[in-house]
Structure formats: C-alpha cells, structure tokens
C-alpha cells in the first residue's frame, strides 16, 4: 500500500482535472473503416452528375440500399423525374419507396429528364454548423459524416439541410445521410451508386487530383450546383441542369 497522502491542494487539482478526462472521452471521433494506408489529407472528394445521361433506372438507389442498409421509407440517394407538359406545367416525382420504380405516366410531354440527388457534401455545410454536439463533421478529405455514437437525434441538421438529404433513422434514432460510401472510398473503391450506374451519369473523384475524371469534367464542361444562393458551396456538380430543378 502506498504511503502517499493527498494534500488538499492536490485533491482539488485532481477534482478539477477529472471533467477534462470526461471531455476527452466524449469528443466525437470521425467514423472510420479506413484502410491503414489511406491518408485522408491527400484527397478532397467531390461528385458530379451528368443529368443528360441519367435514364432513371434506379440501380443507384438499389445499390445504396444494399450497401448501406438504408431504413425503409428513407433515402440516402434518390432520382427525381421531371416532366414538363405542353402547357408548361412541371410535374416531379420520385421512385416508389418499396419497389424503387417510377409510376407509368401518360399524356403529352414537351420535355422530361431525371435528376439524381444525394448529400452535396458542402464545403460550408449548414448541417455541421448547426449540430449542437459536434456529431456532424467534415472529414479532412471533404466528406460530411455523422458520428452515430455521439448524435443526440435532435433533428436540427435535418431542418437545416436545404437539400432534404438528411433524416432521422428510425432504427438508430440518429441523423442518417449519404456517406459517399466512406468505407469503400477509403479502400480505393467508388461509392456503390457510382459503381452501379450503367450510363456513367454519376461521377466520383478527387478534386485534389487535376488528372481525375471529376477534375477533368469540371475543367472542360459547364456545370451548376443546387441552390447556390444558400452559400453552402456544394461539392456535387450538375451538368445540364434545368432551371426547374431545386
């Protein structure tokens, strides 16, 4: 048994230091599943959608669901169908949540197109700004993730996201969203939705690498982002975006 006797001063110091240990324990850490040789600081991931190529097959949604076990009724990625009638009236819908297929439509159409949507992994994301506990984070490689061991499930990020990309997962009771398949991209693979897209409408790549497919597309083509007036600086870039799309 130690002969050490605690002085009052030492005891006070110890008590004062104890909460800081609690802080260390509770500080959220990024979700990982990273490969050991993966260096996050060397990458800066982005995403592009060539809307002229999307055929609305729904493969991306099915792949996302299978890869990430997304709860029924919610979407980490989805495809919107826009249909502008001869009268100029625009109708929008998404695939059925169960079958992930679109309803058959009738009537005359002046133009129609599909718009894939997902989390925009914004540079100035509102969701990470408003998260009260710091459970929503930016990884050094430009991905917005949620630490579901730390999230309190308040839903503030769901309200703050201008793109409707977040939801409260009914199973984990925490915020759910697209992770860009972080467990895959850190192993050098593409996100499941990109890998399964049959037409190459979804493009994923490293914005840090000027020779990446994504960087080349952005350099050589005209593109837009969704709701630029929000000031969120999305990193999901759209080619051929119609003015009807919000």
């Amino acid at each position: 048994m130690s002969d050490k006797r605690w002085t009052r001063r030492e005891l006070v110091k110890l008590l004062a230091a104890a909460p800081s240990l609690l802080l260390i324990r509770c500080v959220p850490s990024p979700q990982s599943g990273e490969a050991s040789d993966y260096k996050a600081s060397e990458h800066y991931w982005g995403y592009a959608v060539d809307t002229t190529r999307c055929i609305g097959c729904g493969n991306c949604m099915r792949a996302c669901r299978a890869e990430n076990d997304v709860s029924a009724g919610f979407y980490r990625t989805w495809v919107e169908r826009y249909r502008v009638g001869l009268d100029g009236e625009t109708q929008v819908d998404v695939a059925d949540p169960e079958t992930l297929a679109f309803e058959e439509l009738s009537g005359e159409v002046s133009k129609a197109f599909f718009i894939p949507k997902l989390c925009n992994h914004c540079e100035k994301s509102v969701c990470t700004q408003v998260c009260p506990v710091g459970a929503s984070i930016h990884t050094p490689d430009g991905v917005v993730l949620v630490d579901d061991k730390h999230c309190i499930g308040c839903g503030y990020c769901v309200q703050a996201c201008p793109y409707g990309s977040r939801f409260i997962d009914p199973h984990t009771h925490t915020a759910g969203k697209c992770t860009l398949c972080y467990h895959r991209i850190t192993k050098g693979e593409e996100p499941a939705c990109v890998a399964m897209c049959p037409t190459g409408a979804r493009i994923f790549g490293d914005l840090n690498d000027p020779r990446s497919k994504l960087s080349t597309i952005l350099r050589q083509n005209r593109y837009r982002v969704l709701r630029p007036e929000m000031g969120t600086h999305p990193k999901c870039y759209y080619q051929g975006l119609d003015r009807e799309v919000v």
Partner: protein
Amino acid sequence: MTFVFPNEANVTWTVMIVLYPFITGLVAGAFIVSSLFHVFGKSNLKAVARYSLVSAFVFLLFAPLPLLVHLGHPERAFNIMITPNFSSAMAGFGYIYAAYLLLVLLEIWFSLRSEFIARAKGRGLTAWICRVIMLYNLDEDESTKRADFKITRFLAGLGIPLACLLHGYVGFLFGALKANPWWSTPLMFVIFIFSAIVSGIAVIIFHYFVVSWINGWRVDQVCVRTLAKYLWGFMIVAVSLELLEILSLAYKQTEEWEVLRTLIDQKLFFTYIVLQFLILSLIPFLMLGVASLVKLKDRLAYALIWTASTMLLLQVLLMRWNVVIGGQLLSKSLRGFTNYLPGIWDREGLIVAAIIFTLPFGILYVFHRIIPLFPGAVKVRARTNRQAADTTAGIGN
C-alpha cells in the same frame, strides 16, 4: 401535382417541439411580470409577484422535458454541454438554461428567505424541508432582510435580459435556418420575445382567476386591471410584428412568397388565419381594449379579461404550432407540402404533451402548500368546512 423531397414525408419536429417554446415563453413572460414588481417597483402587481416568480421557476424546470421526450437519444442530452459545437445556435441551450435556472432559483431563495425561516422553526416534515432549503441557516434580522431585498432586486434586474435571451434564443433557433423560408427571418427573435411576454402575462391572469375562484378569494382589482393593460399592449406589439413579417413577404413578392402564400392559404388557413389571427387575436384585442378603456363593472371586466387571457394563451400556443409545424409542412423543394397530425397515445403524442403541460401546475400546488403563492389573498365568500380547514392549515392565507 406537388412534390416533397422523399425524406420529408415525415415531420421531424413534433408537437413536443411546439410545447417547448410555449413553456419557455411562459417562463420568460412570468419572470418579466415578477421583475416589473421587484425591479421597476410596480406595486400594483404585488398580488401576483410571488406567484409569477415561482411559476417561472417551475415552468423552467419542465421546459427541457418535451425536448428530452423528443430526442432520439435522451441519454446523450448532456453532450450538448460536454462537447458543445459553438457554431450551433442550439449549443447555447444548456448554458443559457442552466444560468437562468440558477438565477431564478437564487432569486426565489433570497426573496422568500423570511417565509422559509418562519416555517423552518416549526416541527414536522414541512419545517425540515424548509430548514434544508435554508441550508440550516435561520439567522434573520433587519440587516439580512435588507441584504436579501437588494440581492433579489439585482437578480430580478439581471434576469430580464436573461429571460429575453432564453426565449429570444428559441426564436433565433428557427430564424437562423436559411433553408426554411417560413422560419428564416431576423424578426423571429423579437416575435418570440413579445409572444413570450404575452403568454406569461396571460397564464398569470388565467391562473390567478381560477385559483381565486376555487378558494373564494377576492381578486385584486388594481392588479388584474394593470395586468390586462400590459397584456393588451404587449399583444398589440406581438401581433403587429407577425403581421409586419407577412406583409413584408407579401409585398416583396419573392420567389418564395408563391409557396408561402399557398402554405398560408391552404395548409395553415384554419390554424393561422382563422384561429390565430381572426379569432384568438382580434377578439382578445377588442376585449382587452374595452376592459382597459371603458369603465365597466368589475364582474364584467373580469369576465372580459379572463376570457381574453385564456384566448391569448391559446393564440400563443397556436403561434408556436404554426411556426414549428407550419415550417415543416412546407417542403424544401418549394413545390409541395407534407401533412402532420399528432398521435394521441404516441411517445410524442397529445396525451404526453398534456401531461407535461399539467405537471408544473401540480408542483405549484405543492409549493403553495409550503409557502402561499398569493400571500395577500382575502377570502370573500363562505366555503365548505374542508376548504375552511385548508385555509386554517395555511393554504389560503
């Protein structure tokens, strides 16, 4: 055909998040009434000053309960204080709430020290509770009373900006969300403060009348008429600010107004236009105007004031509903609306909400058993033997 983003099919913030700003509003409003007496020397309000302060404290105790019921992980609630993300408006909640709770607690402790000490000197459970509350320090003389008075006044003064901060902050939580055009306005901060004061005064009038009627007390005429005038003034400001916000949006005719107009015209027509404005604002405005400006017999004036207060309480509750739920009915696609009907027996349903709202009144009753909340109340009508016995036991003095 309308379109909502697929993750918006369910409303995330339920009736619990309607109840939360409603309860914090009652806190802020009730506290301001007590401060009008303690700081600004409005002696007309003496009859309800103690009740206002204690009810602010009790409602404050219950304010986080709807939030805890709503949270996906209530067991992690303290993360908000342990690992706060200071870029989030919500991160301030824990600190603002704790500071305000401490302040109100201290103010009650100092302002009611004499009462507690008087009861602590007796025997039995109540005396023991009072001794514990007083930390076994029962010393009292003129100098301690003077010190208590000064400290109470200081705390009441400090509490006014804190009360505004607490509730204005709740408004800011909504107003700062740029993604939602129904919420995103700097006026939200101010609207919430004024509507809080309205609801606080209204609940005090409502409860004062009910308790006086049950106990057979004479209502303090000057106090009630003064409160009615304050209520009238504050409701005019609160409603004008809300109308100003809508008029401004309508006049600017921005792209967002198209969808907001549909929200107001269709989804919120009954709760917003008909109930909140036409019935629960206009009628109380007229009632309080008549009660304040026309010489009426007490009985008629009281009927008008009590009815108007009750209607304004409902008006503020509906305002919270129209803000919290209304904002979520509108899809961020700006192309359509979703629906929400609260469940009855659900965890976040109407029964749980009613229980949470009723609990503070139970605690107020228990507090009243120890220290009377309306110390100057005077009995005017004969009551049953049982009520008389209660009065003798110290409830009705």
